[in-house]
């Protein structure tokens, strides 16, 4: 059955929100390999291609590495490209993530955050995507299924404007397999918002060029400079696209969202679905008169450092919850935040690591985090929460 092209409201999983996003963005070439918990994304996209809801070529490859390689080829000739993966699939793609960004191809991918083995895990944490931090991909961490669908569309618009690939990220099972009501925009509205992909350069027999050939020490560095400049531009573009999206669809998410931060002395900083639980705790504490607020970091690459500094300028302390661990250092978001502040603002940053491998991060744990930061003066780089010792 061909899905409706009219605006609808349906109860769908995060994975299906991804598929609908790719359908509405009119992805032309999709290439993917199955991995738990991503499979439903590609199953639904396969159905869309089969029943004509989406006019795309679906290349069913033999590995994630090949999935990204196929998209490097397709994007080079000017096709809008999509894939989805998770954990070990993303790790296997690593080489091609560098290639896609280096070749300046605006491929969009959904990564379902899943903990890395060994030992095996299928549950959520962020080490898979954060391990790809320096590949030149934009990274956007999503909190709800609506945000997931909307972010696919926003990601294409931003990626194509700055000629860099974009990865949207959602938590395994907590979002990927959880159904929520989602406004699915009409095809017409998305077409108005997102024009067809028209690259400045494409591989073509009409105008033959060599792409990505050997760059000597005399030329290589300028390619890297170009990527960094485009990342800096992407900060502005992503905000602009979010504003345009708001005008078109009435929803916006920001690069960093502030939640009940007025007069907050302690700011809790979260990403992804831990944010939803944190909202409940913040409501509770605010209503009992505590001076706490919440920042949700949505855009991780490029990192919105300047914006962050403006948002924390009046706070006395930060407490960061990381569902990831940079072994030998601590939570990765906490490190990024400290790095963004250090030359500009002196403010204690408490780093908490929690919820690895899909362990629940409950309201009680978040209350403890806040309590700890409120009652300690000296910040600590790494505080484990919920670990059984």
């Amino acid at each position, binding site marked *: 059955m061909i899905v409706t092209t009219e605006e609808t409201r349906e109860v769908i999983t995060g994975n299906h929100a991804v598929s609908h996003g790719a359908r509405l963005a009119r992805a*032309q*070439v999709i290439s993917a390999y199955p991995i738990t918990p991503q499979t439903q994304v590609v199953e639904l996209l396969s159905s869309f291609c089969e029943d004509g809801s989406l006019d795309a070529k679906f290349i069913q490859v033999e590995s994630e590495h090949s999935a990204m390689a*196929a*998209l*490097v*080829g397709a994007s080079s000739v000017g096709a809008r490209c999509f894939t989805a993966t998770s954990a070990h699939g993303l790790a296997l793609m690593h080489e091609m993530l560098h290639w896609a960004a280096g070749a300046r191809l605006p491929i969009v991918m959904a990564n379902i955050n899943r903990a890395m083995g060994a030992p095996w895990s299928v549950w959520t944490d962020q080490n898979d995507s954060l391990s790809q931090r320096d590949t030149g991909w934009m990274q956007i961490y999503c909190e709800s299924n609506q945000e997931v669908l909307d972010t696919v569309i926003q990601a294409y618009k931003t990626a194509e404007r700055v000629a860099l690939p974009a990865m949207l990220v959602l938590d395994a099972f907590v979002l990927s397999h959880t159904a929520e009501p989602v406004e699915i925009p009409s095809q017409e509205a998305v077409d108005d918002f997102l024009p067809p992909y028209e690259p400045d350069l494409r*591989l073509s027999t009409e105008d*033959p060029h*060599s792409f*990505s050939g050997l760059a000597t020490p005399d030329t290589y560095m300028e390619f890297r400079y170009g990527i960094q400049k485009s990342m800096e531009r992407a900060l502005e573009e992503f905000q602009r696209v979010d504003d345009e999206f708001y005008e078109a669809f009435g929803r916006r998410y920001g690069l960093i969202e502030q939640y009940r931060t007025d007069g907050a002395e302690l700011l809790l900083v979260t990403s992804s679905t831990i944010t939803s639980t944190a909202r409940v705790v913040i409501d509770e504490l605010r209503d009992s008169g505590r001076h706490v607020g919440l920042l949700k970091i949505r855009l991780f690459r490029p990192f919105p450092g300047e914006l962050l500094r403006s948002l924390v300028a009046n706070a006395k302390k930060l407490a960061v919850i990381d569902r990831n661990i940079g072994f030998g250092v601590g939570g990765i978001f906490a490190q990024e935040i400290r790095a963004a502040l250090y030359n500009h603002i002196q403010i204690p940053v408490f780093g908490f690591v929690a919820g690895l491998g899909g362990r629940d991060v409950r309201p009680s744990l978040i209350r403890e985090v806040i309590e700890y930061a409120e009652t300690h003066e000296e910040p600590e780089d790494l505080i484990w929460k919920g670990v059984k010792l």
Partner: protein
Amino acid sequence: MDENLVVPDAELLTPGHLGCQGCGAALAMRYVLKALGEKTIVVLPACCFSIIAGPFPYSALKIPLLHTAFETAAVTASGVRAGLDCQGDSETTVLAWAGDGGTFDIGLQALSGTAERNDNILYICYDNEAYMNTGVQRSSATPWGAWTTTTPHAKRKFKKDIMLIMAAHRIPYAATASVAYPEDLIAKVKTAKKTKGTRFIHLLAPCPPGWKISSEQTIKFARLAVQTRIFPLYEVEDGTRYRFHDISEPASVEEYLKAQGRFKNLSEEDFELIQEQVEERWAYLIGLAAMTGAGNG
């Protein structure tokens, strides 16, 4: 006149390429592009040709060229094909051009995937029988008895039979070819160009520094490889119909082996063993062809 006997004049590989003197791969590319023409996109993984084609911003090819990672030639070509198809371009030939390391070893998985899907690309492996670009390390295409820097005496494993692996995928067209037989090579590339689906050509391209031969001997050894049946010329359609370009009186392998520096550590017994292997393999191929219902061409 049979159009297959006409070698087009147009040169799509320019003289400014960076191949070594006597490079079999550069010669091979020149002939192949004559057969394919301008409506061709080349996908190039890491291999000698990543260098031969010239550094940024130069290109020795007059057609578009996409460099990609080592193990991805076939599937990147599949992606280019899909990208062209969805824009209505079914005319352009997509050529994946990879060395033996990128085909027999690190790129085999992606190649198998492309062949299993029967994606509409032409894959040519120019086989110089070792990792020549990195300085002559053994690959699974290196023949038994050959010196390389990682088989300092001689390799004691047999060359992987890539053609039978590809034929087992039942792709519509697979062929071997040699730079010593340009008319045959061009005819095969033209046949491949006209065929839809995954097409595979295994092209022997001698490497003077890697084989330790002098640069004017490329053609001599490419020809001897065929004449000794070390590298027989044949085609396989749909994995079943074999067609051989038979050599009525094969030369002895000794002539081929003795004159190459890379085989200098071999003994008389080794030559005999290689001769036996070549004859055994030929008999096996002929038997396979008879079993699957084909004759000699």
